[in-house]
């Protein structure tokens, strides 16, 4: 049985917000208004939305270099996000972090990370703290298929399992690490096969189906909150754009046909069709949502563009905490 209509609408709205935010970020990047790198989340929206809608506010999430979608799904402030991407003083990190280090500790979003796998041990540390405090808060860590080849992932996954910590491992398997296909870097069919090496229950989910992700996440969270230890969720998904930036077609590392096939399974289009079919929303409602989100993002862009650059006099602030317990 499908989840409540409010849930469906939530999933839809968050996916649309991610999609539009990322498309805007891509345009601004190509217009050189966003410096550095942007690793866009377009195509994978069902994962961030499905997971985050299932979470409680006190649960933590940790992210990767491809982190915008996770923060948007968590309810991140689009103005502060866009400002950070543009390196403005009003950004989440006052311009010091940028796309790869965006975070919102008030939303228990522990940060994106520029080091592949680097955030996984940190997420396990947050899970440890939850257990230490005796609450049933869960630490959720997003990571890519390619990151499961790095040592930090392995150590952290094993640590979580050995200590039976409340951590949900969400692998976003988009089948590529930069320009290298997954089958060239690991000799297994599904990334989830790695969970057994840690004695961790694992499950594969259609990462193009927000409802499926939402439901599997809910089941996993129940088990984790019940003290049964970490769970591994492999979400089969795909990034539409290039590893970084937008360009999507005519890349030699993957065929345009492959991209087209995945786009046909687009999570947003599919959910919208289902919403109309199930009478959860009318085409007009959906248009209204899209229009509202577009407006939000326009406002965010205006805010970011109007915001000042950081004052170089603040360069040396924030290296150390001065306050002490």
């Amino acid at each position, binding site marked *: 049985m499908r989840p409540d209509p409010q849930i469906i609408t939530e999933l839809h709205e968050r996916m649309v917000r991610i999609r539009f935010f990322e498309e805007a970020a891509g345009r601004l990047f190509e217009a050189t208004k966003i410096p550095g790198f942007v690793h866009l989340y377009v195509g994978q929206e069902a994962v961030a939305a499905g997971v985050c809608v299932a979470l409680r506010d006190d649960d933590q999430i*940790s992210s990767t270099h491809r982190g915008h979608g996770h923060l948007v799904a968590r309810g991140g402030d689009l103005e502060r996000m866009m400002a950070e991407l543009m390196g403005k003083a009003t950004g*989440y990190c*006052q311009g010091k972090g940028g796309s790869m280090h965006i975070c919102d500790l008030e939303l228990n979003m522990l940060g994106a990370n520029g080091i592949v796998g680097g955030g996984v*041990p*940190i997420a396990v540390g947050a899970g440890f*703290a939850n257990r*230490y405090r005796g609450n049933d808060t869960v630490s959720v860590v997003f990571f890519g298929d390619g990151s499961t080849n790095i040592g930090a992932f392995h150590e952290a996954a094993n640590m979580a399992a050995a200590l039976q910590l409340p951590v949900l491992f969400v692998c976003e398997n988009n089948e590529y690490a930069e320009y290298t296909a997954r089958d060239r870097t690991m000799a297994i069919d599904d990334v989830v096969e790695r969970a057994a090496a840690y004695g961790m229950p694992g499950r594969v989910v259609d990462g193009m189906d927000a409802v499926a992700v939402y439901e599997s996440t809910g089941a996993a969270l129940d088990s984790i909150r019940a003290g049964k230890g970490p769970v591994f969720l492999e979400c089969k998904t795909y990034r539409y754009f290039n590893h970084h930036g937008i360009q999507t077609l005519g890349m030699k590392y993957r065929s345009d046909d492959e991209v087209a096939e995945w786009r046909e399974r687009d999570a947003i289009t599919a959910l919208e069709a289902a919403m109309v079919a199930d009478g959860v929303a009318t085409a007009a409602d959906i248009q209204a949502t899209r229009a509202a989100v577009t407006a939000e993002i326009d406002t965010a862009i205006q805010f970011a563009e109007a915001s000042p650059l950081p004052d170089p006099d603040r360069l040396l602030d924030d290296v150390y905490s001065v*306050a002490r317990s």
Partner: protein
Amino acid sequence: MSDRELTYLHAFTEGLRQMMEADPDVFVAGEDVGRTGGVFHSFDGLVDDFGERRMVDTPISEQAIIGLGIGAAVVGLRPVVDLMFMDFVLVAMDQIANQAAKLKYMFGGNASLPLTITTMGGAGLSAGAQHSQSLEAMLCHVPGLKVVMPSTPHDLKGLLVASVRDDNPCVVVLHKRLLGSKGVVPEDVYEVPIGSAAVTRAGSDVTVVAYSRMAAEAMAAADALAAEGISCEVIDLRSVLPLDIDTVLVSARKTNRVVVVHEAVRSGGVGAELAAQIQDHAFDYLDAPVARVGAPFAPVPFSPALESAYVPDSAVIAAQIRETLYRPMPGERR
């Protein structure tokens, strides 16, 4: 009794126990730190007092051990995580230098990281090239970290307390050859401020700056030279990041000659930074180049016959001091 003596090892354990008693958010994680009490016994008995919830034995996973500390600290606990040997800092360097050290800055200040990393450095036990290093210079080049290297039981306890209470990632480096050394340690909780050096001997002819085990060797050299009528002022840095350069400069401007000593490889060591700052800020006061004593440019050899020639000692320090005072003794080992 204020003149109670403790070993360096027990000063560490006592300081840690008192921090754990004072703050329920303080816990310890590392390899064999719990049931075993640490391979150097520095955590002995803590599991009996605080249980396995707060004395956590981990898998052999240095990256995940540091990450455990970072994640727990960023959500508000006050972790102490242990790397058995300082050489293993290299295994966890990404988590230490790319993650812990930079997290607050990358987040625009919206975080604090009350994390303490404890580890055991230094040579002299024939532990070989991968279990004997002094790698503080690498850590001192990383903005965001603090690094302390106490030489006495008193300073070890005080700096451990200050580090655990500090809201920044602090690395507390013990020296394996000091574990049995004794000294007066107050029973109550006290701090030795991070970044403050101690003038451990007043003198007028030359300033000898050292830290960790070399502070004791420097003192021994000073004693020996006193018999020759050479008056050494000895400074124990105690912290290497931040450096208490002011205390060093005051002394340098007084004695006009400085010898910096550490056990780490001389080239690229903390002594280089000290020499660079001293010649910069006391240029007109120096009657001789700032001299540096450290290990030669080689890995730490295993054989005691080689290791004893590799690690600086009071004789090498004394020889350098004589040379800096323009009183070289021909044919002396450097």
